[in-house]
């Protein structure tokens, strides 16, 4: 299967960073997921072969890490933190607002495939709570209205 040139350059470099091939597995899985949208059977077979692992060994690792998914999700994954620091400053209300606005629940995806929603554990934005990560971008100190604006921006971005 084909990944981007950037992926291949990075992957080749990573193999030289460790005494064992398998050490490249965790970061590589995330980079592969970024390109494909999720970790498909094809990705698993490919990486297993490249790193001299069985597919089962790769799956075993995938199921441990919360950011890795074997199911397709929306173009923008909206991750709302409701852990203690965010909870104290309205994280749960933000999540509820998102659920209503997007019409989906935890790990759901909108029918147009644009947004997925996830309630996540601490993302390291405690002093700027409540916080949301959309894919890898942080959005902090949010009110419901701020979040509406953020979501609209992503929607516009997708339409252009």
């Amino acid at each position, binding site marked *: 299967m084909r990944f981007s040139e950037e992926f291949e350059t990075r992957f080749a470099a990573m193999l030289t960073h460790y005494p*064992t091939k398998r050490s490249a597995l965790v970061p590589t899985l995330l980079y592969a997921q970024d390109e494909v949208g999720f970790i498909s059977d094809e990705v698993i077979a490919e990486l297993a072969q490249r790193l001299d692992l069985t597919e089962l060994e790769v799956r075993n690792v995938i199921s441990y890490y919360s950011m890795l998914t074997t199911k397709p999700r929306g173009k923008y994954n909206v991750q709302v933190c409701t852990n203690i620091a965010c909870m*104290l400053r309205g994280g749960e209300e933000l999540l509820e607002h998102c659920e209503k606005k997007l019409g989906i629940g935890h790990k759901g995806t909108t029918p147009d495939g644009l947004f997925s929603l996830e309630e996540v554990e601490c993302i390291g934005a405690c002093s700027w709570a409540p916080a949301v990560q959309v894919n890898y971008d942080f959005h902090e100190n949010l009110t419901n209205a701020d979040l509406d604006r953020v979501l609209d921006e992503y929607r516009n971005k997708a339409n252009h």
Partner: protein
Amino acid sequence: MATLVSHPDEVRVISKRFGQGATDIDRYLQLDGYKAVQKALAMQPDVIINEVKSSGLRGRGGAGFSTGMKWSFVPKQSAKPKYVLCNGDESEPGTCKDRLIFEHDPHSVIEGVMIAALAVGSHTGYIYIRGEYRYLLVIMQKAIKDAYAKGFLGKNIFGSGYDLDIYWHGGAGAYEVGEESALMESLEGKRGIPRIRPPFPAVVGLWGGPTVINNAETLAAVPHIILGGADWYAKLGTPKNGGTRLFCLAGNLNKPGVYELPMGYNLKKMIYDVGGGIANGRSLKAVVPGGSSTPVLLPEEIDVAMDFDAVAKTGSMLGSGGVVVLDDTACIVKFALRTMKFYRHESCGWCIPCREGTDWLEKTLIRFHSGGGVNKDIDNMYYLSENMLGKTFCPLGDAAAMPTMAFVKKFRKEFEDHLDGKPCPFEKEVAIERSPVMAH
């Protein structure tokens, strides 16, 4: 990009380059960058270790172990390669300090890893950054590349004849990987399941080689110690608690933010002065002083110096620097429940007391918070937590048990107020949920 704050009581050591454009290597060089490692190259390894030991620097990840002491455990001679591993898997709820270091001063971490490597005779370092911090991984990748381009890394660094490689590594979402042995498993491309100790990583670590594992903030402090001297650094803090640390003020405060304060700074002052006091004119109910795993403190317990030893005397821990402040509208049962939901989610399931304990505690707290609790649940939760302590390979079980015991002990009345089908006094509507009562 996280917003920066300031306060006159701050003593800027680790944060002195924040907002100064120091991600650029030339700017970092202008700001005394890579001077400490060059100084260290001219020092004997034992001298470096002693300097760090006498600086009173203790692990900023939360355990507070003497950094110099940790380094001294690495055997001088080793058949297998030795490694330095920077722990940037920052995930303890309440903690967001390493994020700022990586964002504003990535080279200080690289330099810290380099000095640690020189001290223990290692030629390979890794900087592990949690998967959620992708933008920081990008910053670090560039910083490492720039350091290689200048000849600071690779063969014959600074013309010294010493070879040193440092590599980046990204995680993919796992709190437990912040625990040192799980971190090594993750770096080796496996599930982050903890290893039994002994042997300790300093003797048998990554790929079986002796390994030094330090938190990113700890390593970022090292160049400053080498340049400024151990005495200067030690005197910034309190006895046996050298230097400063980044405190992450979070929760119901007027001015939350990450502030660099001397070790031993008074917690009450931190909340009411630095943090601007309790938001919305409310009053203080409780403080979690060092990340979600540290036992809660009551308002009458906060006149305490924030160093490892003084906070330990209160029965809590200084932990990771995450100070989470609760005002009087917060429900402790709900707070305990959210804390436990986290630990249940993050428990890897390897050790039964942690896997089953966190699950039972969460189920009990869900039922309890919704008014379905019975009196004996309160003692059961304490008993269950007590029986998780010290019975697991890694401290995740302890991290779940310790705060729960403190919530139950210090807020028993509030737990009782939820009994007998009474709705949570802090919430308007809570659906009653009935899950099994634990037999005991």
